[in-house]
């Protein structure tokens, strides 16, 4: 089961700095385990961010992104209390959605 993301959303001026820590193995399909077997590719391929329900980021990711990645977006025109929702889907169709409210920076 997917573990929760850790999201910070701090407003500086009218720009919200959204920083997301994602717990994911992001297996490339190239790594071998301790027994020498290839570990199947397992990675986030879709990442979306919405701001008060409106999409502000819709990205296609790949195996090139690191394990437990750090992901950052800046949203212009944000206010304190705005709702930011971050979702990902991986190639095994695991999903995770977490949300935060923008806080004063």
């Amino acid at each position: 089961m997917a573990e929760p993301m850790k999201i910070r959303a701090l407003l500086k001026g009218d720009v919200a700095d959204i920083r997301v820590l994602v717990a994911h193995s992001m297996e490339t399909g190239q790594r071998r385990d301790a027994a020498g077997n290839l570990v199947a590719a397992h990675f986030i391929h879709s990442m979306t961010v919405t701001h008060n329900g409106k999409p502000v980021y819709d990205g296609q990711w790949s195996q090139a992104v690191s394990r437990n990645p750090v992901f950052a977006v800046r949203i212009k025109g944000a206010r304190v209390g705005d709702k930011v929702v971050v979702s990902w889907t991986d190639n095994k169709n695991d999903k995770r959605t977490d949300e935060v409210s923008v806080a004063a920076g």
Partner: protein
Amino acid sequence: MNLSSRAAAICAFALALATGSGPVTAQSKPEDGLALGRKMLAEDNPGDLWVERGQRLFTAKRGPKNASLEKCDLGMGPGVVKGAFAQLPRYFADTDKVQDLESRLLTCMVELQGFKREDIIRTRFGTLDRDSDMEALVSYVGAASNGLRMNVRLTHAKEREMYKAGEYAFYRRSGPLDFACVTCHGESGKRIRLQDLPNMTKAEEMREVVATGWPAYRGTHSTVRTMQHRLYDCFWQMRLPDLGFASDLSVALTAYLNYSANGGEIKLPGVRR
């Protein structure tokens, strides 16, 4: 929609490595790049994910006895995690031993939750194939002391005994490379290759190493490592036999080092290469 968004999915650790091994100009020492990389990582420390998982593990009913760790006494009373890291290692009457955080958690997982000691020890260090519960629990308990200062006391005779044993071990040379801890950690401003070496005979450096050091997210390991792992890794590099997890020797070294860090403000987990 008057929104412009700028997004970057950053492979933070690849970036940090690139910074560290980039061209070195006359104005910048090689370690400057490493320091910058560490600073970038500290802002978004993946170790925070271990803190959250550790919290879930601490409060969940687990093991053959289906119990949480909320009765685990880390020195501040049953289930109290705040301030626990700051005063460890310390003497515990129930085990009649001086214990560090890892060995104390091991006691609780065995006694309260009914886990087998050898199972916990086998999975003490996480791998890319398997996360370690111990690394998550240590992250959670460590972070619960953030903002407090290290305050290890030597009030019990066994605490003083462990402190002196740790000091003796710190200066004890052995193995095919004749190394003691002090061989690499007795002078300030030195490096093994590009890796900065803290001077562990200097209190001001120790305060930082202990209070902001371990547990730490290690970029090259993709997991949080604990002080027990740090010591194990040093023994490995010194070409000594495997350092037993939670062994008295490991606790003695931690007692010696943590005591010398008293007064350091805790900020955990750290971030390391």
